[in-house]
C-alpha cells in the first residue's frame, strides 16, 4: 500500500495520474479507483467570466486533523483499500484545480460511495473559506444549504450553512 500522507494541504497544483498511481502502487487487492477533482469556475449566477480569482484560506492543523478524521470515518463505513485528499490553498485562477479525493477499493460500489461521502463531508466540515474576486470587488463565498443536505443523506446532521 502507498505510504504517502493521506492528507495534503498545499499551494502547489497536483497531478491526478501521479496521485492515483501512488495510491494503487503495490496493492493487488485494488479493483476500483474513484477520483473527484474540484475546479475553480469562472462564473457566478450564470455570468461567464465574472470571477477573475479565488483565494482559499484554511486553519492550519485543524484542517488536516478534520480531514484525517473524515478518512477514518470513510474507512469505517465502506470497504476501502485506501484514500487520499489534497486541497489547495492560496490564490487560484479560474480553471485551476482546487481539491482531489481519490479512493480505492476491491469493487466499484465502495469507491463511488467513499469518494462522494468524503467530498460531502469535506464541503461542510473542513475549515476552508473561499473568497472570490468579481467586477464588484472581492467577497467571501456563502455556504450552501444544499451542501448540508448532501451530508444529511449519509446520516449526519450538518448545520454549516443553516
Amino acid at each position: 500500500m502507498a505510504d504517502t500522507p493521506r492528507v495534503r494541504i498545499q499551494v502547489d497544483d497536483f497531478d491526478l495520474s501521479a496521485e492515483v498511481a501512488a495510491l494503487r502502487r503495490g496493492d493487488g487487492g485494488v479493483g476500483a479507483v474513484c477520483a473527484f477533482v474540484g475546479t475553480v469556475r469562472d462564473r457566478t449566477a450564470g455570468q461567464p467570466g465574472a470571477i477573475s480569482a479565488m483565494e482559499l484560506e484554511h486553519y492550519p492543523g485543524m484542517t488536516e486533523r478534520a480531514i484525517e478524521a473524515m478518512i477514518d470515518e470513510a474507512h469505517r463505513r465502506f470497504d476501502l483499500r485506501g484514500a487520499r485528499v489534497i486541497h489547495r490553498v492560496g490564490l487560484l485562477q479560474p480553471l485551476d484545480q482546487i481539491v482531489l479525493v481519490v479512493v480505492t477499493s476491491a469493487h466499484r460500489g465502495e469507491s463511488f460511495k467513499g469518494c462522494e461521502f468524503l467530498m460531502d463531508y469535506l464541503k461542510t466540515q473542513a475549515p476552508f473559506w473561499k473568497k472570490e474576486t468579481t467586477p464588484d470587488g472581492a467577497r467571501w463565498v456563502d455556504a450552501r444549504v444544499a451542501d448540508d443536505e448532501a451530508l444529511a443523506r449519509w446520516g449526519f446532521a450538518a448545520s454549516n450553512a443553516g
Partner: protein
Amino acid sequence: MSSIRLRYFASLREALGPGEDAPFTPGLTLGQLRDQMIARGGRHAEVLARGRALRCALNQQMADEASPVPEGAEVAFFPPVTGG
C-alpha cells in the same frame, strides 16, 4: 495568569486580526465567551453579533456554544466553511 487563545478566520480575521488572548473564567462556555467578546463593542460586536451565522472550534475540533472552555484552550470563531 492563565488565558484563552482566540483565533479568527476569513471575514472575522479581516475585521479583528488573526487572534488575541482572553482571560480564563472557570465554567465559561463558548457561547458566553462569544457574548463577552461582543460586549467589547466596536468591530467585535459587529462581526460576532448574534444575528450572524458563526461556527466555533475548541482545541481545533468543531464544537457547539454549550461547550465549556478549559484553561489554556485554543478557541476559534469563523464563518460557515466553504471549501471543496
